[in-house]
């Protein structure tokens, strides 16, 4: 009988192990609901992000002819590297990224500082700054396509009234750095997107304790010294995160140039971006459409962005230490 009792109460072997088991069971119960919530997100990511990524990698090593898919080794990669527009697209993408950083990164920051300093009409102005973000991108870009029209566009009309030379804006033929065509694209992109970044900066600015500015003022700091010694250090985390997000987003520029150039790539391909080239490989070359080459270019872009993001995060952590 004593043996049976022992068998029925194995936990009695050790009170410490019993408590550990209870904790494990409690944690499992808690985790069931957490995992339940998680599974939806995991499935979504799985189906719509991770599976397409894996499929893209596989497809980049395949070819498809007459309905038969076979392995193609590195031929898709060779094809894209041999394509002269490949390097043009990378040059343009980097040009857009740099210009978007100079214009699109700095402008929202200073607009946020300005809004933060205002005493009146704050809500109204915030709404005004955010308004373009609420416009569908295609509508906003079609609006700019009209502004940029060399014959009937608003911008040239203004220039004519001011007796200044007109421009062909996004239809400008130059390919130098920076090209007028790309600057035109960046202006439209900045106008469309700056609202979101401005509000994030504004939120960060409002978290800075007022005493820091008071102390700086007592030390005789002017506006620019306050920005340099208080605002920037206090918002460094947000600034560096937005910088990363903006670079990753601008490297994937597509819709801006696509709409403004009527589905083309600008004069002499001067607004052709990497993602636009992926689109051309996959869809625009009906008859010679090639999902496999498009996949190969997609993988190259993904690797570049992954390496950049990893490097950037590593560098940020090193600096933080």
């Amino acid at each position, binding site marked *: 009988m004593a043996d049976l009792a022992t068998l029925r109460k194995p936990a009695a072997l050790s009170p410490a192990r019993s408590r550990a088991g209870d904790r494990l069971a409690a944690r499992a119960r808690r985790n069931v609901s957490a995992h339940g919530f998680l599974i939806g997100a995991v499935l979504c990511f799985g189906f719509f992000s991770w599976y397409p990524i894996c499929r893209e990698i596989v497809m980049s090593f395949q070819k498809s002819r007459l309905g038969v898919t076979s392995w193609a080794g590195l031929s898709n990669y060779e094809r894209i590297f041999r394509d002269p*527009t490949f390097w043009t697209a990378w040059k343009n993408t980097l040009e857009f990224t740099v210009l978007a950083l100079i214009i699109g990164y700095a402008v929202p920051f200073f607009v946020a500082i300005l809004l933060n300093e205002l005493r009146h009409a704050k809500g109204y102005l915030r709404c005004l700054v955010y308004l373009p973000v609420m416009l569908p991108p295609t509508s906003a870009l079609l609006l700019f396509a009209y502004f940029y029209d060399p*014959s009937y566009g608003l911008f040239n009309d203004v220039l004519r009234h001011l007796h200044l030379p007109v421009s062909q804006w996004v239809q400008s*033929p130059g390919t130098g750095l920076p090209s007028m065509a790309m600057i035109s694209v960046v202006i439209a992109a900045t106008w469309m997107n700056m609202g979101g970044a401005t509000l994030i900066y504004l939120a960060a600015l409002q978290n800075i304790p007022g005493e820091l500015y008071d102390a700086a003022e007592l030390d005789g700091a002017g506006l620019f010294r306050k920005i340099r010694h208080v605002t920037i250090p206090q918002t460094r985390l947000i600034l560096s995160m937005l910088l990363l997000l903006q670079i990753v987003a601008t490297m994937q520029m597509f819709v801006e140039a696509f709409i403004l*150039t009527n589905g083309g790539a600008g*004069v002499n391909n001067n607004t052709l971006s990497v993602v636009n080239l992926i689109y051309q490989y996959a869809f625009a*070359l009906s008859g010679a459409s090639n999902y496999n080459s498009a996949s190969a270019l997609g993988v190259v872009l993904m690797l570049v962005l992954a390496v950049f993001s990893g490097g950037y995060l590593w560098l940020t952590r090193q600096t933080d230490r």
Partner: protein
Amino acid sequence: MTISVDCAPPASAPQQHKEWLEDVALFEKQNPNITVNSIFENPCEVPASFTAMLKAGNEPNVFYTYFTDRNQVLDAGQAADITSYVNAKTVPALKDIVPTALAAVTAGKTLYGLPTVNYTQGLIINRVLFKQAGLNPDQPPTTWAEVEQDAKAITKLGHGIFGYGDYSAGNNGGWHFSSEIDAEGGHMINSAGTGAAFNSDEGKAVLQALHQMRFVDHSMSPTQQLAWGTLQKQMAANKLGMYIAAPDDIYNVIVPQDGGNINDYGMGPLPSTSGTPAGSLSGGNDYMFAKRDTPAQIEAGIKWLVFENLTPGVGFYNYARQKADGFPVGFPEPQMFTGATEAKQQQLMTKSATVNPAYFSTFASAHELAMGEPADAQAVYKTLDPVMLEVLTNPNANISQLLSTATGQVNQILANSG
């Protein structure tokens, strides 16, 4: 048994929609065992969606394609072989279908579809602007020199009116360049299909004429990067004197969609240096059959296409009904048939004609030689778009250099697709 057929006119085009529904009802009455499941859409094909549809393999049983799509459909493995189903009994007009149209749906000796529209291009002119500029609209220009001269005269009218327009985006720039070089007697691709042939005197002559009009005569608008659909609007708004197109631009787009007046337009042949076009890019569309179609669905699909698109007096060729419904009748398109079928079609069309044939007589009498589209047509057109765009936007465009660069790119495309 049910067959799904796309490119049915949607309700937003009420008259065409009504006629399609009438045709389906009549066809189903004549063939009680067949149900036509119409897929209403306009435009009939959006290239990017079409490519995605092929990759997904979910095209309708009988699906619309451009002549240039054949290779893409075959590469995707989505076309059924219909060779054994098509003969003089199932397609009575078979022997009279123009060979270039039939070739567009044939690979080797295998037939993959039936053509429904075939055209050559010409020069659409705005008769109102011609008259206002003191030009004779019954004698459209035939040489590039005449086009330049007339375009200058029309541009002098002012008020944002330009004499000539052309495309340079959406693959349409390369498409038009291809037709213009055909008219000059040149070629886009060499006869072996292995290399580009447009870096020639003919190619340079075309681009030089366009550059001259844009930057010397200023008879073309500074607004460029235009794709299909834009010049039609300018023509309908009486802001454009001339551009290159097939006749259906007038009766399918300028008049019904853009609000132009049917009697304001005429056509001449494609311009060329000599005044007699050596040829014209022929184009068109067709229907192919999905790989998964059963034999019965293929037979039913062929029956439907014969009824709707390949029989004078019926369906698309029911000119009497078109006239009664208020559609303009009498355009020299589609150029689908030869021989007895063509004679019957012409006779029916003339009987119901509402359009003055004199407005199109110089185009019709030119009898332009139909040239097929180049290999990998859309990819080639895409490569030529930037060339057209630069010629029309850069006053210092180096035409030889542009053609040389494009030649290298097209050679690479052809090598990759071989």
